């Protein structure tokens, strides 16, 4: 699917998705969410609000107790009745700690999701080129900086040609000065490839700067959704964020 075509019909649809770990309290409650092709959607919420769990549900790493997850024409989850295992979903994921396999070279990390494709090696190098990591194919992950590891993780997640990319706070481990640039580059690569992006973050600034649409999650539920412009009260300058950055576009969200 290329960007622009058919962009009004939803690509990923969540209906009433509900989940609890074991017999514990509900972590995700009755969540509806729609993602269009090539759309970048930010899920904003504090830690423990259930946003990461929602990503794990979409990836298939957890099974919803109720609700449907549909991708294109495929029903991935239908309550406990149907559940496509994570390895058979066209969904890529980039983790907060990048989760590169420490015993494999960068190239073999990227090729991990390509199965037995004969051109896996060339394709891995091509993807590394797209994230600006040409020439690092034979390096081992632990020799890379945080920003470099993050790029490799993105290239690896793209290796299986996903239709949806899930980003679980993949920029929060990076240096503040590096973060904006890496994020912009990463999202550009994903937009070019026409992949829809669902990005989890607890940083309002990050959400507003990079997302087309966003939702705010609180206590396992989506409490508000809209465009950054709709969800943001501007004009006031305040200090916020974990590193004390000053003066972003969005200081206060319209949310109780």
């Amino acid at each position, binding site marked *: 699917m290329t960007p622009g075509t058919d962009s009004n019909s939803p690509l990923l649809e969540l209906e009433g998705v509900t989940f609890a770990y074991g017999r514990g309290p509900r972590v995700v409650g009755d969540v509806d969410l729609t993602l269009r092709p090539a759309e970048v959607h930010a899920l904003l919420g504090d830690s423990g609000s259930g946003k990461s769990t929602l990503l794990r549900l979409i*990836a298939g790493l957890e099974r919803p107790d109720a609700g449907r997850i549909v991708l294109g024409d495929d029903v991935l989850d239908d309550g406990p009745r149907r559940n496509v295992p994570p390895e058979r979903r066209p969904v890529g*994921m980039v*983790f907060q700690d990048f*989760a590169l*396999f420490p015993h494999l070279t960068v190239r073999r990390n990227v090729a*991990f*999701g390509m199965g037995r494709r004969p051109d896996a090696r060339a394709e891995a190098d091509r993807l590394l080129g797209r994230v600006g990591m040409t020439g690092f194919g034979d390096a081992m992950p632990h020799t890379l900086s945080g920003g470099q590891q993050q790029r490799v993780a993105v290239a690896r997640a793209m290796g299986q040609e996903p239709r949806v990319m899930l980003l679980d706070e993949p920029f929060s481990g990076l240096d503040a000065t590096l973060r904006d640039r890496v994020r912009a580059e990463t999202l550009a690569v994903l937009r070019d490839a026409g992949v829809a992006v669902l990005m989890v973050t607890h940083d309002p600034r990050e959400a507003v700067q990079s997302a087309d649409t966003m939702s705010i999650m609180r206590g396992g539920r989506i409490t508000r959704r809209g465009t950054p412009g709709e969800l943001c009260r501007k004009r006031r300058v305040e200090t916020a964020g974990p590193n004390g950055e000053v003066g972003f576009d969005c200081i206060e969200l319209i949310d109780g």
Partner: protein
Amino acid sequence: MNRWSLLSLAVCGVVALPTLGVLGSVFMPGGEEWRHLVETRLGTYTRNSLWLVLIVCTAAAVIGTAAAWVVTAFDFPGRRLLYWALLLPLAVPAYLSAYALTDLFQFSGPVQTALRETFGWSRRDYWFPEVRSLGGAAAILTFSLYPYVYLAARTAFVEQSSGALEVARTLGRGPWRGFFTLALPLARPSIAAGTLLVAMETLADFGAVDYCAVDTFALGVYRTWRSLESPVTAAQLSAVLLSVVALLVFAELLARRRARFFQLTTRRQPVRRQRLGAWGSVAALLVCGLPVALGFGLPAGVFVHMAWTTGDARAWEVVRDFTGNSVGLAAAASALAATLALVVVYGRRLGGGVVNAVAGRVAGLGYALPGTVIAIGLLIPLTWVDHRLNAAADAAFGWRPGLILTGGVAAVVLGYQCRFLGVALAMLDASLGRVRPTLDDAARTLGATRLRMVLRVHLPLLRSSVAAAVLLVFVDVVKELPVTLMLRPFNFETLAVRVYQLASDERLEESAFGALVIIGVGLLPVVILSRLIDRHGRGRTS
């Protein structure tokens, strides 16, 4: 309940079998033998076991803690060597120490002979401690078991080190007062856990107390089985011992939990050690060097000397004839233990749930069971199964297959699983714990099935730990005595069993090479253990 839970439960059942066998015996009629045992021997067993545990634990706690403090807090010539050499006694099984030290210090031994010749004494002119006594056994066990305390205390001291102690220094507490008011109280749970391991090993010891003729519970189980030929009475005796061991296990669990709680920081800086002067260095060398000398140097030296001076063809024959049996048994048992341990740790990782967690815990508890208890606990149910099988086969086909379980090596290998699965489990559990769960998730979202994830991601990452687990169990099996002695097939002897028999027959010289092989094999895990700890320590601090 998923597949993993069933597998974990099966493994857990294997390890729990001896305990169930022993507990089951409580409900069997004990009869005349039990009453006889209570009237004649039970008092002795209780008294000896209590005294032994009391003396060995106290002495090992003091020696292990003191040595650990000296090597972490002070700098002196030889410190780096002693830092790991203090672990060396782990390579010498207590029974070998007993044989060697008795040989060295008995009336006809070289030490007393030299004293008599030097001073012209005769038998009545002097007093010399008797090695083959309760005190002797306590000393032997102390110097062979203190490394458990040393290791636990050293880890605790290194972890708390700089932060808390430097604060204490800036508040005007010197290293000595800092030790008693801060370092020692903080390390107490770890020291307690190490000491409780010493208590379990003391209660479990068979070879050393047997040679020193100190009748403890564990030895009583063997004697009752051998001389009274009453497995049920031996099992009932085991049940008494088992309940004491259960208390120790519980106490150790609590101590470990507190030890975790007492860990102050995760960020560590290397300790700034205080440099000692000449007299301080001498004292430090004595505190750290004597345990190594008595626990490793002397016993190993005696066997080396024996092999050197009196080693002849017969001594080599022992090694030639029985090493094969030892290696075969150890290879089979260690491969099986690693496999079973993998099943259990994967059950917990992939299967999850309470059943897998509990099964994993139980499977790891076998280390606390004395070998004689395991043997008796297995003999009863396995003999029963063997007889049933024969009866069934006889009825069905008119043919008796013989003793399949108790007649072959199956029972011994099973016994080793009960005793040593915990070792393999601890090894694999720790290293699988270091494989971050997001690696699993990443592999799955990249299209890998669970099988492919295990093969391509986990196994390469776990390879060295699996090898270490196999090696540790292998070495433990080579050194093991009571389980092998009681469960081996008729006329089947291992190196350890042969050395035991030769020592019992006062033919120790012939066993010298065999003993050295056992000690040499035992050195492997000590070296690996200290390297693992070093690497782990470096990884944490960097």
